[in-house]
């Protein structure tokens, strides 16, 4: 009898379901990190150790910030110091790899001439102020990486758009718009001092010549990451495609206002700048994008329009800004676009009243 009593205490009681799927938060985040790997590798190929340094600094900065915040924020600091081992253990148990992803993304959207302390500051800002202060994983209002990028842009005038040839940095006064790269895309771009001409293939592969951020140059690598995310069902296949294609098309239309309508520019607009990277890895962030399918549709359409329009008029690297803007609109979208339950039919009262 005592044996049975002992045994029964071990049995867990909870609400159903009693079996669960294999997916975990950590697993999803690891999937995203894996999808980012090709971009990271290509960044290292094009920008050598410099890119590696940026990647390491950002990831280490992000993870360390999260840990320090965890250590300091909850419970007495002194009390935690005395039980440091336990705290580290509980932290590793709940560690869900979101900060790794944030660090990775932030590094990949930084221009290659970023100083190490700037990168570090950006990742600390992204994790501490944007994510942890709002309540940690799942509670942040805006994408931490995008916010970190914008923070650096404003603080240090770090604009993606430094000219880079064969890995040698020629930073200086010339800030080219990262969005307007190809020859034909320069509608009204004559005011720029320097432009580089890239073939479509170069635009797709990066090819060692880049003016954008380190991870955004090689579209092929981003595409590989996209395929991985879709196969692993982390994102829905139509989300980035809708955003990129619509944005490209609207850009073509806007360019047509200054001249002739030229649909052959469509791939140039789609592939240039941070649009592809932002659409695949940043806009699809779960926490800061709408939850329902219709809400997501609205979100990606609005994001594409905003990006295209702002690109046309501002000529600066705009993707992070538009993503931040749409992040802020997400709660509104979620509140007003409510799903109808299965079998729901709109009441026909209005029609009958007319009769």
């Amino acid at each position: 009898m005592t044996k049975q009593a002992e045994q029964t205490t071990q049995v867990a009681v909870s609400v159903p379901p009693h079996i669960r799927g294999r997916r975990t938060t950590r697993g999803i985040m690891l999937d995203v990190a894996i999808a980012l790997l090709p971009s990271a590798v290509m960044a290292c190929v094009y920008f050598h150790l410099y890119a590696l340094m940026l990647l390491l600094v950002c990831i280490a900065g992000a993870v360390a910030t999260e840990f320090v915040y965890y250590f300091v924020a909850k419970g007495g600091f002194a009390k935690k110091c005395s039980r440091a081992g336990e705290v580290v253990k509980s932290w590793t148990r709940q560690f869900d790899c979101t900060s790794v992803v944030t660090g990775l993304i932030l590094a990949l959207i930084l221009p290659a001439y970023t100083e190490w302390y700037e990168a570090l500051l950006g990742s600390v800002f992204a994790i501490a102020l944007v994510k942890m202060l709002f309540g940690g994983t799942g509670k942040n209002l805006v994408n931490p990486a995008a916010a970190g990028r914008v923070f650096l842009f404003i603080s240090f005038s770090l604009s993606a758009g430094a000219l880079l040839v064969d890995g040698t940095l020629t930073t200086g006064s010339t800030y080219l718009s990262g969005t307007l790269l190809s020859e034909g895309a320069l509608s009204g771009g004559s005011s720029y001092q320097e432009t580089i001409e890239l073939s479509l293939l170069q635009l797709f592969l990066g090819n060692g010549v880049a003016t954008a951020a380190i991870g955004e140059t090689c579209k092929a690598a981003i595409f590989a990451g996209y395929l991985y995310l879709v196969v692993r069902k982390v994102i829905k296949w139509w989300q980035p495609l809708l955003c990129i294609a619509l944005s490209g098309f609207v850009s073509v239309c806007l360019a047509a206002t200054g001249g002739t309508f030229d649909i052959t520019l469509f791939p140039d607009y789609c592939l240039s700048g941070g649009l592809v990277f932002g659409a695949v890895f940043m806009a699809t962030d779960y926490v800061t994008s709408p939850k329902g399918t219709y809400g997501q549709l609205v979100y990606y359409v609005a994001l594409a329009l905003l990006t295209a329009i702002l690109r046309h008029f501002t000529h600066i690297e705009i993707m992070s800004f538009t993503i931040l803007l749409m992040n802020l609109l997400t709660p509104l979208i979620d509140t007003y676009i409510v799903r109808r339950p299965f079998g729901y039919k709109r009441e026909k009262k209005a029609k009958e009243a007319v009769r």
Partner: protein
Amino acid sequence: MKAIQGKRLFAGIHPHGRKQLSSGRALEQLPPPEEVCISLSQSLGRPALPCVEKGAKVKRGECIAKADGAISSDVFASIAGEVIDIRTMTAQGGGEETFLVIKADQSGEEFRFPALSDPTPEEIRARVKECGIVGLGGAGFPTAVKLSPPCPVDTLILNGAECEPYLTCDHRLMLEFTDEIVRGARYLKQALDCKRIIIGIEDNKPDCISAFERYPDIAVVRLRKQYPMGGEKQLVYSATGRKIRPGKLPADAGVVVQNVATAFAVCEAVEQGKPLYERAVTVSGGAVNEPKNVWTPVGTPLSALVSFAGGEKTSPSKIVQGGPMTGIALPSYDFYTHKTTSGVLLLDEKEASLSEPSPCLSCGKCADACPMLLMPMQTDFYAEAGDYEAAAKQGGALHCIECGVCAYVCPARRPLIQSIRKTKQEMRKK
């Protein structure tokens, strides 16, 4: 009739079935337990009122409690013996229920109603009511009530989906008692005065599908293996393409859904006059030695069932009454089967989910998987904040069928069903 393919659900999941544990085991009769504890709350609605005294001798199948109200049902003695106690205990749901305790004697006397030959619809309905038949799929809604629908119906759908993982009692029943189920369905059809009988069977049971294809008057629908295919609204949609509107009964769409086990019970009640005092139960799970399908008297202690199935292999992490997706986790074996108990599962460490919930990521996987097209994460968000009205409005919690799909897919292991139940409870108070 040759089986036709059922429609795909809008959403759903494909959990690991683990049905092979017990699907090959023929139904066996449990040796009569020495003592049974029969709850008087065997169906939705109010508990039945006991009509025997303490100390009374009862035959097997004798009525021991009378229905109290329209959606209550009669309760019958499941073994012959003496009523030794009427007591109130904690039931599996956590609430207090009144139990009649019957101690077996050696008489083995049995009570049966007279068999009906060539019954009229009224006779069938009356027999179903006096035999205390309830929906054996799990909800426990009295079948007699379902047989007098508020509006005319043209289709009777037999639910043979058995989409819950592990459970195989309906599978065995369909295989071994095909003829009885068909006859029961014909009685039900007669009582409902409807045109056709459809039986929906998931395509992981091809043997059952071919068994039912032999009958010319039964339309067989091969359902895709997708949980929760056996949900009433989901089954009706998949088998007929009709959608039941939110808050409406299937009769609104011209159909009545009955479980195959219910059809079997109806057949026995009409042809043999046998009241509902026993049912097929699956005993399965990774922590049980010999998973089995067992004919079990209502009120059997779970410990008797488990020891009949060879006892524990390892100590279980969870004891579940019902299926793993919707069943009730129990703290011990000191509970008793109901008319609606379709399974007793002993889940081992690997199978049972014991992980702690973490913050919601808003990934939307729950909404993508929800067969009712709701937004469980919104309900969870607002319910946690205590705003139940917003939880019901934004998440659609009141339309939830509690199939457990959302919590199954949730990567953050949120207790979504708990939030939804709490929301329903709070909204009911208002």
